[in-house]
């Protein structure tokens, strides 16, 4: 048009994706539903949590699943002041890589503390389980500091 008015419109891409898991990922989610955590032994003997179907170094199929603890240590973390839609909390929280007891690699999840000053690398945290669980990463609501704080 003469005034060159530019249009915009909302475009929404939405789908209720349903993902088949295969046996390894399925076992991890089954355990979450039951309230515990499993990992898998890598070719070099390390216990990977969450469990991967294929070795991250050799690419061999991995098969030996083992139970690990639901508490562990924060390896590194980020303080999310202003969470995005869909993230574990709509108030400030930390994303952290957490190495669980019995695991050799850390997993990503949220840590719930009042403010950033309560976070530190090396702190001990424990899974806070949801009451209603379906076999999903969100069956763990988050991790929270173990009483007594740092390890």
């Amino acid at each position: 048009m003469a005034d060159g008015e530019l249009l915009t419109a909302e475009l929404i891409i939405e789908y209720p994706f349903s993902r088949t898991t295969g046996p390894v990922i399925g076992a991890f989610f089954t355990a979450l539903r039951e309230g515990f955590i499993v990992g898998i032994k890598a070719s070099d003997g390390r216990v990977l949590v969450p469990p991967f179907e294929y070795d991250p170094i050799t690419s061999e199929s991995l098969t030996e699943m083992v139970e690990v603890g639901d508490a562990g240590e924060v390896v590194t973390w980020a303080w999310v002041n202003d969470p995005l839609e869909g993230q574990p909390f709509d108030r400030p929280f930390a994303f952290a890589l957490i190495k669980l007891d019995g695991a050799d690699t850390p997993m990503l999840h949220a840590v719930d503390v009042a403010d950033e000053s309560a976070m530190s690398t090396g702190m001990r945290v424990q899974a806070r389980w949801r009451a209603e669980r379906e076999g999903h990463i969100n069956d763990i609501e988050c991790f929270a500091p173990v009483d007594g704080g740092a390890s």
Partner: protein
Amino acid sequence: MGKQRVAIVGIGQTHHTAVRGDVSIAGLVREAAQRALDDAQMSWADIDAVVIGKAPDFFEGVMMPELYLADALGAVGKPMFRVHTAGSVGGSTAIVAQDLVAAGIHERVLTVAFEKQSESEAMWALSMKIPFQPPMHAGAGGYFAPHIRGYMQRSGAPDHIGILVALKDRQNALKNPYAHLHEHDITFDSVKDSMMLWDPIRYSETCPSSDGACALVITNEKGGDAAAAAGRPPAWVKGTAFRSEPTMFAGRDQVNPVGGTECARDVYAQAGITDPRKQIDVVEMYVPFSWFEPMWLENLLFAEEGQGWKMVEDGATQMDGDLPVNCSGGVLSSNPIGASGMLRFGEAAMQVRGQAGEHQIDGARTALGHAYGGGSQFFAMWIVGADKPES
């Protein structure tokens, strides 16, 4: 440096089906890749680089899924490459992989293409509402039906041609253990009586929506010779070509697109083919709706314009005809979209290697693998042969 000779020494595919409920996305691609490696008698460590292809990321809802698949495909510490050229992607991906070997950059390349359509729904992913447009897009069928109607009008082809193609491909699929559809009871009348989904396209003239993957191991001349010496004949690449043209432009021939014919001329010239119908023994052609077989027969210069349907009617494209097309059952019997092009390329290679089992054409020496995508605008083709090319 000159161009190196290239051989296909390993081919693998999944069992294609509507929902592969037993595997993750990684498990699906891995299955095809492992079979290709086993066929090539190689291990993950033997592979220098991985080239992966698939159609839009929205199908699975994973952006750039190759990043997550690096571990499953043994790509860690190696080059990994992702191709996306719409429906032709499986073919384009194989060509990119063969270029890496032809250029002398790598000796052994694994190439994989896949789609796990059951994570969403193809009709949804292909028909997303675009603002400012009426909501009338109805997937690929709605897009291609007018082109088919145009072909019928221009060629005067009778209505039953599409039915014959569908019947042939579905019956061929009964000989292919990996095919998605195994319709033992299919008849001419059952196709004819199936619902008109996108008039003039019937339900039984339409490809299914599949989960599936295909993988190839591609090597240089040394690898091809070694496989041959070990009694596992390779398929030698005799020519490859891409062509693209705009989706829509004034005067565009959408029924018989120029890009397709130019691509065919290019790949034939590389392979020394002057009379394609005579010199090519078997064709794996991308036919998602049955009417595309006669359309592509013309586009690929197997028939004069307007005459392709007569080859169908005469049975020339049946397994016992003079130009068997889609002995595997083709896209009409299995359609994991991103993998469908590579399945055509791979099945062509299986034919010249003599490893197609029940759907093998005896004595096949030269085969064409064909894929197309977008609005019949992206083309990828290769010619493979049992004999090592001279140059």
